[in-house]
């Protein structure tokens, strides 16, 4: 009987994907590649076909790519109904219907939620509306920021020194623009990579001429008489004049439309099992609602089955593929999403890559190269095993460390490695901030052990 049911689903079922970005597109392609022949609908609140976001904070600002031309290549035809420019506003689990902003309703047999995240806006709405105050998430954001940078502002002010903020600061310096960057923690990238590596990022920024201000928060944005931003007020009572302000305070998960639906969805994302099936609010897994991409939080065997929320490009692709596969399979044919967290960034000419979950590591060893030379491999340890690694301009070694993580290799790293310096013989505290005081955009968030568990309650930042 179940086999019949699946056969019919594959032949003439209705699948709806909410979220028409990277995860949504790759899921749609996978469904077709695996033989789904029924109705496929993609719903996206942006009026564009799926486009790639990582270039928006790098090549699009530098003029190597046009921010409006980063559409993702297609792996195959997907023969889908596109509902673009219309947001999903509600979900009726019992009736299996998605409500749309234009009043329409779309019925499904299987639903994939891939609504991703959006930029966290500046918390004072009036100040956020000042001309020159920007966020960077969509292609319009990038086009707007690129235009403002090209116009040659007197100073750019970046609020929040996570990856996105640091990448923007890097692009500004490359364009010869004066830039200041404020960070509540002691260094850039602290939430993602810890204070030791963060201090390298701080040196890089400073040496490239960024006016980096740490241990401060922005208290107010000041506008001029015609509504343009003109200055930034900081918690140390200094005032910096700037005509472009980039708010780079991480992201918010797009789950509001699921409020009241009965799904286990909240500010931390939508909880799902290792097979990408969403949990309802009682912690009971659904069997027709799946989740993928930035909006998902799912348990990972390698990291103690803690729920991870990953804002990673590669996770969106891999989770979409797994979710799509599982949507049109039964029981034993399903497979778990066991993707190794991995991300990259690039700033001030340095390539930064990471695997595993660095914020899980209390300790760090520099096993190759040297922090002072900004070329190194750093390994993070947690309870006697390797849980993550980071490289600065040393990407070709990273897959070795990925295998060490996969096999739970012991930490500290006792064996010798090429180019091991005296500084790398002993572990040091990695220098992550207290997790109850989240920094901006850590990109990997440990979010507890049960679908309802939100032991790290995220308080929106109050600057």
């Amino acid at each position, binding site marked *: 009987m179940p086999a019949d049911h699946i056969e019919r689903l594959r032949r003439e079922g209705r699948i709806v994907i909410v979220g028409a970005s990277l995860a949504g597109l790759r899921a749609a392609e996978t469904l077709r590649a695996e033989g789904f022949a029924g109705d496929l609908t993609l719903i996206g609140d942006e009026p564009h076909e799926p486009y790639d976001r990582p270039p928006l904070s790098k090549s699009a600002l530098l003029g190597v790519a046009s921010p409006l031309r980063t559409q993702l290549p*297609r792996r195959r035809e997907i023969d889908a109904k596109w509902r673009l420019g219309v947001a999903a506003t509600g979900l009726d689990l019992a009736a299996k219907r998605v409500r749309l902003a234009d009043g329409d309703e779309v019925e499904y047999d299987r639903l994939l939620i891939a609504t991703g995240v959006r930029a966290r806006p500046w918390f004072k709405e009036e100040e956020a509306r000042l001309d020159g105050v920007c966020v960077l998430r969509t292609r319009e954001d990038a086009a707007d920021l690129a235009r403002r940078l090209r116009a040659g502002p007197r100073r750019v002010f970046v609020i929040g020194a996570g990856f996105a903020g640091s990448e923007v600061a890097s692009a500004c310096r490359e364009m010869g623009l004066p830039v200041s960057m404020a960070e509540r923690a002691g260094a850039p990238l602290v939430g993602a990579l810890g204070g030791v590596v963060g201090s390298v990022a701080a040196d890089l920024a400073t040496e490239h001429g960024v006016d980096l201000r740490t241990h401060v928060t922005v208290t107010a944005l000041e506008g001029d008489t015609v509504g343009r931003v003109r200055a930034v007020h900081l918690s140390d009572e200094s005032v910096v004049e700037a005509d472009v302000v980039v708010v780079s305070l991480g992201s918010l998960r797009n789950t509001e439309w699921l409020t009241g639906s009965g799904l286990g969805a909240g500010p931390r994302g939508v909880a799902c099992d290792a097979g990408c099936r969403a949990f309802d609010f009682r912690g009971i897994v659904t069997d027709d609602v799946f989740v993928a991409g930035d909006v998902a939080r799912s348990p990972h065997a390698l990291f103690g089955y803690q729920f991870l929320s990953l804002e990673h490009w590669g996770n969106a692709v891999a989770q979409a593929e797994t979710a799509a596969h599982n949507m049109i399979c039964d029981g034993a044919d399903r497979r778990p999403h066991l993707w190794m967290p991995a991300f990259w960034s690039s700033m001030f000419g340095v390539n930064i890559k990471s695997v595993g979950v660095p914020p899980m590591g209390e300790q760090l060893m520099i096993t190759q190269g040297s922090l002072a030379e900004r070329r190194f491999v750093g390994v993070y340890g947690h309870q006697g095993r390797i849980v993550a690694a980071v490289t600065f301009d040393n990407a070709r070694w990273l897959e070795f460390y990925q295998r060490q993580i996969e096999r739970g290799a012991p930490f500290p790293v006792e064996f010798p490695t090429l180019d091991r310096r005296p500084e790398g013989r002993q572990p040091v505290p990695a220098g992550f901030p207290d997790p109850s005081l989240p920094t901006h955009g850590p990109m990997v968030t440990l979010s507890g052990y049960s679908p309802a568990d939100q032991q790290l309650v995220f308080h929106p930042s109050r600057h």
Partner: protein
Amino acid sequence: MRLVVDLNKCQGYAQCAFLAPDVFAMHGEESLLYDPRPEEEQRERVARAVAACPVRAITADGLDRAGASQGASDAR
């Protein structure tokens, strides 16, 4: 033509930047910058870059030859 590079896979071998320098550029020793929407006249060069990528990180659509087509699947 649309293209995307999986920069998790990319290890900075720079083969694409040798073969299609108007589309791919190294930024520093290891970072890659690229134009995701190159002009049609770059098609042949992009196809060469896709085929030469040692880690098969480049996915482009609109390239028809099989051996030079896609980097979407990874056997691992």
